[in-house]
């Protein structure tokens, strides 16, 4: 670790501690917004851990999220809370493992469609089970957890996701992912077991998202498959991560905040046209910021250093190009 990293770590720790004080000031609108933000930051960042470097766009977020929520439905009242979260993480990872083994050989649009189908399939399965065997489609969740506690758990989870992302980026695994994202053929011929690396990351990402689902489940009190496996979650996570930029660990964070605020504004002021406006916003983002906010910042920074280095050694560079 160098000094810069230690400083960033310390600053992030302080920031988290500061954010953790929010429930002391407000228990209403701001706490609700805080929960929403923290949940989406955790999910988008976890999503980008896998989808950022590999460029495999996953729409399975709702599947992991719903799985986590349904772990709470089934175990929330009987098992101790930490155990519930661990089970949610394990279930998320297992689901990712199964789905990944079946799909990571697929590429591009096939993978997107399959992951989307996966969330729908699980939703239908759960609905079928609840109506035919469980007795009712919806179920009540009575877990004694306050909004402030949910918020703190989500903040801690955000911290964990970032820590995991940081550790991965420094490791061989992180380098392997970047190589895979650039060129899978080169990756395989350099000795990278591409299937295993992708599977591992998909599991890590799925586990985190499932835990977010579990932590947020008590917010609803009443859970049914169409809430827990809502495909809007998958789409929003993708949009937010792309808006921020999925190739940097902090990218999704930059996307979640403006998007969540925008969403609040749109759904508050134009409740009948929410989807229309969201769709338009998405089109504009993809058109104007294909690399996301983070990518744009990086581009500008690169261009600036470039100009400086070129100005500094232009005669040498000219000689080189002439050759």
């Amino acid at each position, binding site marked *: 670790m160098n000094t810069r990293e230690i400083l960033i770590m310390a600053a992030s720790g302080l920031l988290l501690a500061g954010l953790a004080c929010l429930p002391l000031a407000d228990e209403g609108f701001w706490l609700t917004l805080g929960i929403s933000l923290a949940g989406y930051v955790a999910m988008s960042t976890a999503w980008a851990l896998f989808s950022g470097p590999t460029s495999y766009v996953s729409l399975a977020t709702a599947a992991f999220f719903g799985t986590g929520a349904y772990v709470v439905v089934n175990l929330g009242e009987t098992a101790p809370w930490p155990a519930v979260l661990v089970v949610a993480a394990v279930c998320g990872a297992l689901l990712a493992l199964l789905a990944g083994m079946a799909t990571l050989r697929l590429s591009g649009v096939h993978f997107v469609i399959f992951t989307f189908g996966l969330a729908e399939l699980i939703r239908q399965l759960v609905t079928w089970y609840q109506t035919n065997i469980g007795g009712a489609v919806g179920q009540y969740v009575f877990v004694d957890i306050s909004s402030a506690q949910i918020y703190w758990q989500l903040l801690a989870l955000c911290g964990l996701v970032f820590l995991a992302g940081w550790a991965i980026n420094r490791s061989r695994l992180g380098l392997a992912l970047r190589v895979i994202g650039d060129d899978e053929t080169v990756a395989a*011929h*350099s000795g990278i077991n591409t299937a295993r690396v992708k599977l591992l990351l998909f599991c890590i990402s799925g586990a985190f998202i499932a835990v977010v689902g579990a932590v947020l489940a008590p917010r609803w009190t009443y859970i049914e498959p169409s809430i827990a496996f809502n495909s809007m979650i998958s789409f929003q996570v993708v949009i937010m991560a792309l808006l921020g930029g999925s190739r940097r660990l902090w990218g999704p964070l930059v996307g979640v905040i403006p998007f969540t605020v925008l969403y609040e504004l749109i759904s508050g002021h134009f409740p009948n046209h929410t989807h229309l406006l969201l769709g338009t916003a998405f089109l504009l983002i993809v058109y104007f910021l294909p690399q996301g906010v983070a990518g744009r910042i990086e581009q500008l920074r690169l261009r600036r250093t470039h100009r400086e280095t070129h100005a500094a050694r232009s005669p040498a560079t000219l000689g080189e190009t002439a050759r």
Partner: protein
Amino acid sequence: MSNHLLLSIAGLTKVFGGLVAVNQISFDIQAGEVVGLLGPNGSGKTTLMNLISGALRPTQGSVTLEGRRLTGLPPHRIAATGVARTFQLVRVLPSLSALENVMVGAVFGPDQVSPGAARTVARSLLERVGLGGREHLHPAEMTYIDQKRIELARALAADPRILLLDEWLAGLNPTELQTGIELIRSLQAEGRTVLMVEHVMDAIRSLCDRCVVMSAGSKLAEGTPAEVLANPDVIRAYLGDDHA
């Protein structure tokens, strides 16, 4: 040259639908040899390279590296046994710097070098292929020959038992070609084993200990460069009956 059998190809065949792209090819490569793989366009040279590196699975036949059967293994397992390659159409990693590109070869190669040590390896290899001082540039900022240099350095970073070069010298201008030939000669001098697909005759004459010539998927001739280039069958395959 030590007489130690390194790579053995026996009856290797690849069929695509009705097309036999590689037909019953057999030859051996001794450790420390530089072997040229020649043949007109479409004769199956690159397919043969792909069969050795695992990019394609052979329909029949076997590839053995020091007694170990490579046939049917996935490319990353083959890479782990010490086979490294470059690609006919240069393949560098655009989002990685030159240094990181080369590190990849060492980090994931047979020796699984730690990232810190790989950095040192990569730096000295970039120096060797003539990219010293340009470690932090990205491939997009480099010329074609420099990208080819990165690719060669990446393959060398794995410290491979055998290096497969697929037209590494193609597309270079005469000056660059001389540099390129010198570079491969220096690999030969340090005892590396190389199998190179090549069209540049100067390079073949001055570098290869032995050549294998393919035509329409089959082996046409094998021998020293002088021998195979004088072989009437080879001349016919390249230039037609009138010249044989």
